[in-house]
């Protein structure tokens, strides 16, 4: 099968491997304020993406992202499946092929709106959105990949002192404070990996 763009395979492999490499950390974060399955669930989803990699990279970017999103929806097994699945599928629906910097900013914005609708959540509730929203703003503002990665790192660290008002962690009330949100961390790992892969590409 022919590959439409060699960057696509590298991107999917890098993101999947980064999540799988941090599975224990994600599970540990989730054990503190959730139900302790985030690392395991995301690993299962990313392994499904890797299992389909040859078929995925034969597609154009937008179709590949949609197909990867569908793998996450079907295989993750927790709320993060539909949330990350919706993120990837909407990115696929909205992104130009081949992707452009301006197109990426608009697609990211659309994808995050879709995640908000899926999770009935907004920024400030100690979720993945607390990383994705500032990242989207940084991309729209034309920041470099390294700057976007730094925004993601800071945003993830900032979830530690936040009070959870959405998701399982919200059941803990004040006890959710003092722990980094696992979904914010998995989002940050993905953003950092994508930023590294993109480098200064336009």
């Amino acid at each position, binding site marked *: 099968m022919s590959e439409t763009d060699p960057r696509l395979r590298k991107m999917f492999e890098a993101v999947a491997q980064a999540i799988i490499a941090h599975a224990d950390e994600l599970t540990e974060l989730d054990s503190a304020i959730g139900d302790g399955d985030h690392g395991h669930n995301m690993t*299962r989803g990313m392994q499904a993406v890797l299992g389909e990699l040859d078929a995925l990279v034969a597609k154009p970017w937008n179709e590949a992202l949609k197909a990867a999103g569908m793998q996450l929806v079907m295989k993750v097994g927790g709320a993060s499946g539909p949330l990350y699945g919706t993120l990837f599928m909407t990115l696929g629906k909205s992104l130009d092929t081949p992707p452009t910097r301006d197109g990426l900013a608009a697609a990211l914005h659309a994808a995050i709106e879709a995640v908000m609708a899926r999770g009935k959540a907004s920024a400030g509730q100690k979720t993945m959105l607390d990383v994705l929203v500032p990242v989207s703003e940084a991309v729209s503002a034309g920041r470099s990949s390294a700057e976007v990665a730094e925004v993601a790192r800071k945003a993830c660290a900032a979830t530690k002192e936040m009070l959870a008002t959405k998701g399982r962690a919200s059941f803990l009330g004040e006890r959710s404070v003092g722990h980094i949100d696992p979904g914010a961390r998995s989002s940050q790992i993905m953003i950092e990996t994508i930023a590294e892969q993109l480098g200064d590409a336009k």
Partner: protein
Amino acid sequence: MSNVGIVIVSHSPLVAEGTADMVRQMVGDEVPLAWCGGDPDGGLGTSVEAILAAIDRAWSEAGVAMLVDLGGAETNSEMAVEMLPDARSGKVVVCNAPIVEGAVVAATEASGGASLQEVRRTAEELSAL
């Protein structure tokens, strides 16, 4: 069957099956009923694939009312409903009701031939108590 169908989605297959047992014993066989529970590896969690299959098993032209437990069960159920063919997705609702009581009350309402909206409203009245 012309009665509204009931689908039960729990993180735990034991909870889902036990809830379905209660519905069968308390309400009888007049409503199409299906359940699913557990993630794709059989651990605690929910699976969109299994939810889609359960909707199919409980399918009724009158529609399907879903009773779900926490968080991911709700998100995965809403995702599954959106993935249904257009002819079906408008006829499936996720009820905002406690899973066990909601399933029994919804099935009781459905067994009398109530519409999907009536079944949903009756189940959701439990959440307002």
